[in-house]
């Protein structure tokens, strides 16, 4: 169980390979979030991610612990980048290994829903040349509430 908060890019293939480290694993579900090139308000030139060092790691560790209490998981890997990113860049990677597929799907979905609403990251987009802090979405709050 690991989480990595970093500015640099990560190698998805290498992380997927590292997840499969024993023969009890029957299913691995991964999520990769990418910076999009467009949003409803226009073209995105750049994305900047601020976070709360210390609390970020602590809240991800808590979410991992909650997932492990809910499902029979054999591994969790989380990477989240901060700092300046460009359209197309991968922001976040979550992978979950389990003996069976539904646990892996549900746990990955759960981790992303909680990450979106409880982990202290904030996005600032440069759109059409102007910087804006991204607004939180009520749909993300609703998604997180399904699990409680």
């Amino acid at each position, binding site marked *: 169980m690991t989480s990595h908060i970093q500015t640099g890019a990560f190698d998805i293939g290498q992380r997927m390979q590292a997840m499969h480290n024993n023969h009890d694993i029957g299913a691995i579900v991964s999520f990769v979030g990418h910076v999009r090139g467009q949003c409803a308000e226009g073209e995105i030139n750049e994305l900047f*991610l601020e976070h709360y060092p210390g*609390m970020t790691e602590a809240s991800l560790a808590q979410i991992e612990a909650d997932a492990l209490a809910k499902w029979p998981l054999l591994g969790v890997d989380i990477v989240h980048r901060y700092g300046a990113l460009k359209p197309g860049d991968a922001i*976040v990677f979550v992978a979950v290994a389990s003996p069976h597929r539904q646990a892996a799907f549900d746990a990955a979905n759960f981790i992303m829903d909680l990450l979106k609403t409880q982990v202290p990251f904030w996005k600032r987009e440069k759109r059409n040349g102007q910087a804006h802090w*991204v607004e939180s979405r009520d749909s993300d709050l609703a998604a997180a509430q399904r699990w409680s």
Partner: protein
Amino acid sequence: MSVQVLYFARYREAIGQGEEVIELNDDIHTLSDLRQVLLDRGPAWQILADPRLCCSRNQTLCQLDEPITDHDEVAFFPMVTGG
């Protein structure tokens, strides 16, 4: 008592600083009391009146009625938007 207070994202930008140590009187018991002290500082601080303000105590999310004690690390920030 003395607490460290952190501000993030658009709160940090509006306030013009990211962290400070604040000495508090004995009549300050909760994060809500602390927020009122900050709101009383003037116009730039009204961003903390945000109805969707979030807060944490010692790096754990909490509500405004959370008690604070000496040497706590407290943070105020907008709703998170990572992932």
